[in-house]
């Protein structure tokens, strides 16, 4: 994709070129052509907090991916000689154990694997659906647009969590894939609204008119000319959906309507821990802390991406 975007000319060098014989290429320096993506990357890497968060996230994701290799114990491994231990270095029970002696560090590691997978899945699916519907609605306006807006009106009349709970009860739940699909059904409308808004204004731009005059098909105009101009907001929103999905999935699993054993999930671990009494505080604390860290990092990365994609943005973060 990066090679398709016309390289932005370096403003300073162009100015120097005009002003006199002394500069840039004469002294042997070369002006590097940077694509728009290079600029985005540069701006993102200047945002230190976002970069740090990205590093943490990648590490957590790796822990999730290599859970079976990294976890010191099995997810459901019972050890009746080591029950209800508070966090200790002894035997690597860093997050303690529950009443059956199950190691909570290992359980959390497996929980990360499922919860993160579901969140990313939700973000990708809802972005795909939302982008497609939003693009069609924004480009054609008319009935599709009307239907979409009325549908989002409807979705806004009921609390999202209630819809999800109802769906997971009546469609049957427990399976991460099913929960992911149910969540995606809720989240796609937000993406669709954003893409629709962008398309409504892009539609009036001259380059779209030019493409039409040149005889490009609607599909080509949407995919090749308009969508690349929406990539920034879409990517930012996808990131934010990951954070929201982590939190909502945790709430669902905590209430007992989300992911069920034998699949591990962070929210479920917290409700398991709660049922063992508040004396075993570590069972509730650590899975929750991991959720907070993931959601926080994802939000920081999203924030960094938003700034990176938008050169005009003032430093006001709403």
């Amino acid at each position: 994709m990066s090679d398709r975007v016309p390289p932005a000319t370096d403003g300073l060098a162009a100015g120097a070129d005009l002003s006199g014989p002394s500069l840039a290429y004469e002294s042997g320096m070369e002006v590097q052509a940077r694509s728009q993506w290079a600029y985005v990357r540069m701006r993102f890497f200047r945002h230190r907090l976002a970069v740090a968060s990205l590093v943490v996230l990648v590490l957590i994701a790796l822990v999730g991916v290599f859970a079976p290799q990294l976890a010191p114990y099995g997810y459901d491994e019972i050890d009746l000689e080591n029950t209800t231990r508070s966090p200790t270095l002894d035997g690597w029970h860093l997050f303690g154990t529950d009443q059956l002696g199950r190691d909570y560090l290992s359980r959390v590691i497996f929980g990360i694997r499922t919860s993160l997978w579901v969140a990313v899945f939700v973000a990708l699916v809802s972005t795909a659906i939302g982008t497609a519907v939003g693009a069609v609605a924004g480009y054609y306006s008319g009935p599709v647009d009307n239907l979409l807006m009325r549908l989002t009106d409807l979705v806004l009349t009921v609390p999202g969590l209630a819809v999800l709970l109802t769906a997971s009860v009546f469609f049957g739940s427990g399976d991460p894939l099913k929960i992911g699909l149910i969540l995606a059904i809720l989240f796609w409308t937000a993406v669709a609204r954003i893409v629709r808004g962008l398309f409504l204004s892009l539609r009036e731009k001259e380059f779209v008119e030019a493409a039409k005059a040149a005889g490009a098909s609607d599909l080509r105009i949407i995919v090749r000319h308009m969508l690349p101009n929406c990539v920034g907001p879409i990517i930012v929103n996808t990131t934010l959906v990951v954070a929201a999905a982590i939190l909502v999935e945790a709430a669902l699993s905590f209430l007992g309507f989300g992911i069920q054993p034998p699949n591990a999930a962070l929210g479920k671990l917290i409700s398991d821990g709660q049922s063992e009494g508040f004396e075993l505080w570590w069972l509730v604390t650590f899975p929750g802390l991991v959720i907070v860290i993931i959601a926080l990092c994802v939000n920081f990365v999203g924030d960094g991406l938003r700034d990176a994609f938008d050169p005009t943005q003032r430093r006001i973060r709403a």
Partner: protein
Amino acid sequence: MLSYVVRRLLYSVVVLVAASVLVFTFVSVSGDPLAQLRITPNLSQQSVQNVIDRKHLDDPIPVRYWYWAKDAVTNEFGTTLLGDRPILPDLWRVMKNTLQLVFIAEILAILIAVGIGVSSALRQYSVFDYTATTVSFLGLATPVFWLALMLQVLVVQIYEQTGHRIFPVASLNSVDPGSGIHFVLDRAHHLVLPVLVLMVASVASYSRYIRASMLEVLNSDYVRTARAKGLPESRVTMKHAFRNALVPLVTLVGLSFGTLLGGAIVVETVFSLDGMGLYFVNALLANDPYPVMAWLMVTATMIIVFNLLVDIAYGYLDPRVRYE
């Protein structure tokens, strides 16, 4: 204005009818509410058949929708699937508790968020500003239920260490049945933790929003004019900037009413408060579609009415808005 309200009300009725069709179809096609009953041992086929007959479960969905809608309108949403318990009286009872919780949390959240947001904007990039930003990011990343549990853990730990019960961790049922000020104080005492938990996310997002809107107003031309006239800074910020910065908050509050009710589901479950959220979860656990559908419709009505009120309020606050 009046014609605008009437038009909005009519549109709301259409939205509600559409929502009811959607809700009913969604709940009805997705599962068999009698699945549990059918596999219960020692239950005669006749009893199951009785339930089916009473609730018309053998009819096609449009017919069943008609029966249900008629029940909802003329018979207060009818009764539960098995127990024949009227639904609406229960809903009214829990609604009072939930509205109390939600409104207290919301009002406190707005007050605190306005304080934080305005202070942040007036001292942009100060230590206070950065701290507020960090804390609000944390608030938005913390699962509501986990925060509730951590507070409970804390209170229980304090009790075990010192023997002081600083806050009750569960249930409104133990409230002092006495009258007058005792009742109010005890109830408030019981509500401290739930309100606190429900507030956090709202404070976090509202304060960011107010900060941004305050900064925008402070950088606008008329504020510069006010300063150029030589008005004292306090008058510029409080009279000219502050009041205008608050207007967009009204929209945000209106939109987040639904989210707040969602939060109430979680908070009430954790603190076992006898509110709408707990009622909803219990209905789901009982696999009973009738209270679930009634709940969804009542909530939808509440949200629509609330949004209408917000839009009307917006017209009063912002003279640029005209209702055609």
